């Protein structure tokens, strides 16, 4: 009896789901959705949340040393925004029936993935510029189409996040611009940093299309809207003129305008490097998760106290 009801619901639900996608409407938490769709979204949204949380660290590294109070304030606000993004993304994922604690646990036990870009380190202040300009820039290219993602809570979270990210990107650009207009040492610092971040930022779009097995299904479900390579091209096309304004050299001698394609050509990326970092052998993989785990473990007594206090309060309220 229960089973046949489910089947009937499934059939009706599947038809309704297909119709929503066909009409470019949003799927909402109460709508029927295929298990694969739900799982894909949970994976993608929670990975995105984790990336925001882990992404606090490479920039957090310079809060105490920011070279002007204005930059310190901007950086603090940015890192705080990242925590905020992590929080709304966890909420969006929760609407799909997974607990935040479960996701967070996957993060700190090293079971969940997050964007590999955050396994690179920030040895210089100029990296605050490069992260904003290149990493946030790539994130925006990835994320703007996600504002139209079929799943409502995700799409809406992305609208808010994209607005803040584009602000962050501009701030990063400004950091680099100020350095490029500064002393020789500052210019060298900016160039050296862009040299380190450029290729990893391009790899943020994921492996080449031929090599990206999950992309097709995600596109069919209106989660992903453009292929990895399309997004990467769009990003390079955006960067080249901005680099000219900065007076900075992108570390790829093969970059050249291709009149025929109407796009910039660019060189092959070192995918072996990408897979190395993905496999845990990047510059900071070992440190990022451990740091968050340590913070979580050292804070356990605080969370327990808050729970105990809340429980006691609700008991009081019931009793009174």
């Amino acid at each position, binding site marked *: 009896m229960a089973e046949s009801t489910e089947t009937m619901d499934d059939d009706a639900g599947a038809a309704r789901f297909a119709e929503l996608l066909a009409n470019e409407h949003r799927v909402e938490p109460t709508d029927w959705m295929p298990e694969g769709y739900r799982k894909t979204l949970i994976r993608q949204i929670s990975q995105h949340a984790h990336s925001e*949380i882990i992404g*606090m*660290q490479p920039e*957090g590294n310079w*809060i*105490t*040393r*920011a*070279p*002007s*109070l*204005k*930059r*310190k*304030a901007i950086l*603090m*606000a940015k*890192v*705080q925004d990242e*925590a*905020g993004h*992590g*929080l709304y993304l966890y909420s969006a994922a929760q609407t799909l029936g997974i607990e935040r604690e479960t996701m967070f646990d996957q993060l700190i036990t090293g079971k969940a993935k997050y964007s590999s870009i955050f396994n690179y380190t920030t040895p210089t*202040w100029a990296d605050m510029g490069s992260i904003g300009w290149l990493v946030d820039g790539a994130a925006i290219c990835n994320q703007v189409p996600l504002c139209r993602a079929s799943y409502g809570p995700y799409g809406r979270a992305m609208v808010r996040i994209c607005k803040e990210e584009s602000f962050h990107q501009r701030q990063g650009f400004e*950091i680099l611009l*100020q*350095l490029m*207009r*500064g*002393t020789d*040492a*500052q210019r060298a610092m900016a160039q050296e940093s862009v040299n380190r971040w450029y290729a990893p930022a391009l790899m943020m779009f994921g492996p080449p299309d031929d090599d990206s097995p999950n992309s097709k299904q995600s596109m069919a479900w209106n989660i992903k809207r453009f292929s990895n390579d399309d997004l990467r091209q769009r990003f390079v096309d955006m960067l080249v003129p901005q680099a000219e304004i900065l007076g900075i050299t992108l570390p790829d001698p093969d970059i050249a305008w291709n009149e025929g394609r109407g796009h910039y050509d660019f060189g092959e990326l070192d995918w072996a490097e990408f897979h190395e970092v993905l496999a845990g052998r990047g510059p900071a993989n070992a440190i990022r998760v451990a*740091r*968050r785990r340590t*913070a*979580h473990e*050292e*804070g*356990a*007594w*605080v*969370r*327990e*106290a*808050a*729970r*105990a*206090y*809340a429980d*006691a309060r609700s008991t009081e309220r019931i009793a009174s």
Partner: protein
Amino acid sequence: PGPVADYALGLGDDALVLAQRLGEWIAHAPELEEDVALGNIALDQLGHARSMLTYAGSAWGKTEDELAYFRGESEFRNRQLFERPNGDFAVTIARQLVASVYFDSLYTALADSTDPTLAAIAAKAVKEVDYHLDHSVQWLLRLGRGTELSHERMQRGLETIWPFVGELYSADPFAEGLDGVAVDPRTLQARFDDVVPRLIADASLTLPAIPFARGGGRDGRHSESMGPLLAEMQVLARAHPGAKW
């Protein structure tokens, strides 16, 4: 404007050094919400610091950054409470509670200053500080009344911070002769005595009975935590003298 600038510099240093300490928490907090909350408080404090340092600097032709990055330890005037290390979360909450009660009463009084700049900075700051105070009080209650362990740590946190309370309410040498412009911190003591013992009792905690430390922050005397704090804060700016960022 000299004397007012001197006064503003002290208040600015208090806020700056506290913001620096709070900034150390980011990505280390016990939960994400606290990364956000402590970050908010740090940002507000940094905002107050910038207003005060900019105002002080305007009298001397110096920017906020020249003041923040190119003074030595003995030229910093912050009171020692603000430079105390973060310790565990309970120490940070104890420090923030004491700081917020102080700032709340200070800025409330300073909003009536006859100096319009100080009055305006204070009027804006007091609203933010209200939130900081609420945050500290909530955590004081949660930790004080939460578990046995949290109770013990919160009590220890209060004891760790207590010696630095006295200095806050002692005379501010730079407030002297600025009647109506500056606030004499001694006039704020009554409010502390009215509010804090009650909050501590509400949280089932005990008011510490520990002597106050000597202080002297306004005269450039700091505890041994101050040197490393400044070394880190100033290192990049000092490596590139004259650079803009």
